[in-house]
């Protein structure tokens, strides 16, 4: 069965003007990604999901994704259901950056999220699983990690400036965001339900 639209990572479309940074911004929601060569700010709010900021500073191209893995097997095993899904989520972002002129061998990364913010999910260590996958993947792809702020129990606000690779991150210590947590629980349920799906095959 082909991959359903609701679990395919989508390009973020939510543009806004950030009054604090006086800059055009893009909001990336759970299950979305964005890449650009424009002077924009990309922002996302993370719970147990992870966001990987990737950038090629020499050409000023970068992007960020926001995803979580389905429940299913050892996430550090690339051939497990969750491993295969994670590789796919990362490839969509990398391919987009490369199309905008970035070079794969010049990419550098910053990694955020994987907070075990959902009390009912603390036992299953959903955040840990997402972080372990991303760290293993980046190492495997020889993409250096310039900065990381992961795990713990707090949500994080990430503001990423793709042209330079700069990130401003804030841990939200007094913030229990029910809406964010609901969205993440729903996303995890959906990707888990659809985890056995893969892409179409056409034989010409």
């Amino acid at each position, binding site marked *: 069965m082909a*991959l359903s639209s609701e679990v395919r990572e989508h390009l973020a479309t939510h543009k806004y003007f950030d009054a604090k940074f006086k800059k055009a911004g893009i909001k990336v929601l759970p299950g979305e990604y964005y890449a650009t060569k424009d002077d924009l700010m990309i922002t996302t709010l993370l719970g147990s999901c992870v966001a990987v900021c990737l950038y090629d500073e020499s050409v000023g191209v970068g992007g960020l994704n926001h995803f979580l893995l389905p429940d299913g097997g050892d996430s550090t095993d690339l051939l497990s259901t969750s491993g295969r899904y994670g590789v796919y989520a990362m490839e969509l972002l990398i391919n987009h950056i490369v199309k905008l002129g970035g070079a794969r061998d010049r990419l550098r990364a910053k990694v955020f999220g994987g907070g075990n913010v959902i009390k009912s999910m603390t036992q299953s260590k959903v955040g840990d699983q997402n972080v372990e996958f991303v760290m293993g993947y980046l190492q*495997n792809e020889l993409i250096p990690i310039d900065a990381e702020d992961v795990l713990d129990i707090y949500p994080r606000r990430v503001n990423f400036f793709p042209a330079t690779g700069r990130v401003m991150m804030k841990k939200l210590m007094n913030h229990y965001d029910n809406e964010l947590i609901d969205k993440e629980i729903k996303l995890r349920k959906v990707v888990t339900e659809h985890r056995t799906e893969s892409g179409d095959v056409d034989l010409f």
Partner: protein
Amino acid sequence: MSKKLLIVDDSPSVRQMVEMTLKGAGYTVKAAKDGQEALGFCRTERFDFVLTDQNMPNMDGITLIKSLRAMTAYTRVPLIVLTTEASDAMKQQGKAAGATGWMVKPFDPKKLLDVVAKVLR
């Protein structure tokens, strides 16, 4: 003798996933990191099947397929694309270049083995 397969992808993770899957099914597998390297391998060795990614540095999958189809040794060899590109326009470009088939990621080991078995028959 086991069939000799060439896999082409710029991502080490994808190369590992595909290689493990095919070797596990008893095929002999060689891996290239882009179209240019793959074309070099194909000039000196004969493969029974080539699986290639589309977006890669130096030479993309469609260019590799066009180049291979121009070589007498590869006019009939199955050439399959495995990519994140899901649009019909891209599939048509692949078909026009001489691709045997087009598989969209996420990667599914079972589907790949089915396709390989089918086109190698």
